[in-house]
């Protein structure tokens, strides 16, 4: 009983302290003034076309009840997840093999460096022609967007491993498997997660554009559809949904990263 009491007291104390923190209320001032300025601009008549924040807030429940809203979330997330997964598996295997074999790297790296600067979206028309279904097109594009950041980062991660760690492991009698699991993996993991969190952001961007061009469902399509029917509120709600989706995915990525690398938690 007392334990509950003290923990509840402590929680309340923490809340009070958080409320007193100037960072919090100054942040609130910032966000509030953003919306106030937006609404004021609306009233003055600048950007008359844009919906004001009040209109948007009023429209959110309506838009969410709209047919296919949650299905759009599902469709977009599935595309992002699939493309991201394939990219991660391929990029990690290619990156690790190139990180461990010099010859493979000398042969393969220049080609990937030539392909890398081509923006993923530039592949869109070609992929529409090449892949049999729009679904495959979109997954392929998200794959392209995610592949290069993961690949580059894991390669950099392997390069950054101190050669002395490898030598130490070797002289302590580590075999190839031990070397891989005990030195290479933990050494490259921070860079890998940097790559993964960059990649997840890019996949959302690519999937939105691809959906605008060729989907029947999805958050990008939802926004595009609102544009086609000149519903500005719909566009803003679509944008907000995309923003939330991106934030949630980055959050999940960060959480996985923190849990996969408990030794970095203190930093």
């Amino acid at each position: 009983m007392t334990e509950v009491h003290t923990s509840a007291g402590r929680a309340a104390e923490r809340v009070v302290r958080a409320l007193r923190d100037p960072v919090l209320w100054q942040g609130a001032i910032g966000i509030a003034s953003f919306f106030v300025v937006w609404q004021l601009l609306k009233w003055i008549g600048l950007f008359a076309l844009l919906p004001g924040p009040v209109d948007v807030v009023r429209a959110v429940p309506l838009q969410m009840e709209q047919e296919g809203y949650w299905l759009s979330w599902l469709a977009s997330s599935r595309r992002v997840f699939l493309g991201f997964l394939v990219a991660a598996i391929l990029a990690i295997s290619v990156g690790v093999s190139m990180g461990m074999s010099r010859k493979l790297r000398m042969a393969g790296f220049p080609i990937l460096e030539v392909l890398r600067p081509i923006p993923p979206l530039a592949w869109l028309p070609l992929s529409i022609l090449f892949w049999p279904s729009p679904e495959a097109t979109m997954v392929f594009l998200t794959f392209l967007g995610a592949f290069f950041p993961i690949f580059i980062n894991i390669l950099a991660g392997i390069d950054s491993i101190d050669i002395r760690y490898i030598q130490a492991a070797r002289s302590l009698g580590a075999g190839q498997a031990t070397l891989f699991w005990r030195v290479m993996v933990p050494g490259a993991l921070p860079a890998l997660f940097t790559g993964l969190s960059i990649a997840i952001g890019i996949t959302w961007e690519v999937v939105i554009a691809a959906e605008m061009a060729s989907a029947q469902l999805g958050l990008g399509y939802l926004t595009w559809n609102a544009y086609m029917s000149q519903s500005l509120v719909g566009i803003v709600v679509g944008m907000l949904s995309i923003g939330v989706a991106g934030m949630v995915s980055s959050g999940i990525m960060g959480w996985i990263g923190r849990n996969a690398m408990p030794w970095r938690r203190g930093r």
Partner: protein
Amino acid sequence: MAVTNSSLGAAQVDGGYEARLRASPDWPVQAGDWRARLRKAFRAQALRYALLGFGIFFGLWYLLTAVIVPPRFNYIPNPALLFGQWISEVPQYGISVFTPEYYGHIWVSVLRVYTAFAISVGVGAPLGILLGWSRFGRNTLFPVVEMLRPIPPLAWVPLAVLALPETEMAVIFVTLLASFFATVLNTYLGVRSIPETYFRAAACLGYHRVDVLRRVVIPGALPFIFTGLQIAMGVAWFSLVGGELIAGRSGLGYLILDGYTQLALPNIFIGMITLGVLGWASSALIRKVGQLMMAWHVKGQGGGA
């Protein structure tokens, strides 16, 4: 001499050793001896493997698109045809290095990217410095930046097209958004990375705010700023393509889309490769400028160090 050489094994080994030494990639090449340089470059293992890799890549490409054509691979032009069209004086689809249209598209895209880049740096870098330097500015503005940042630039396209009076402005707006956030964030991180002691030292030496800005904040943040500019340039090209695909009437992104609608397959590839080259060249340019401006920043230390 020949007799001595054959009879004395040691001498032969010696001569062979020196020849091998001269042949090794570590043997110094005299300055100006370009033939030796060329020979050395060709002998380098890295180059041979790279050529091998490219050989396999183009070989596979040719094989799959010209010799055995699996279903759907007919949409990919074979490399010989592609590059033939590219340098043809009378291209079948109206785009090659000899047509003014090609340079027109390049010029429009480059102009858009650099306009967007200039605006995003001009506004983003000062904002980033403000965020990093002033606590009140950081506390109030940073949440707003963080609220808007997760919305991908391309999600702004419909809104930008409707709200801005011209399509051109919409494309530039979409192009600058991502690079704006990259610049703001990296500048902010750069200012935050400056050790507190530098500010205190400046204060002890009686610096005014302007001097602190000029002598401490800007040089201190410069490595991060240039990392940010490189990222900004990359994402600017990325978003430009999206903007041009969805809302453009000209530019390389439009060239690709046009190639798609008219089934002018080589034009799609010409557009893609040109975009890749331009994007790469822009990043290289920024890296070069960064190295020139930060002579004191040891190369290899990187922006994140």
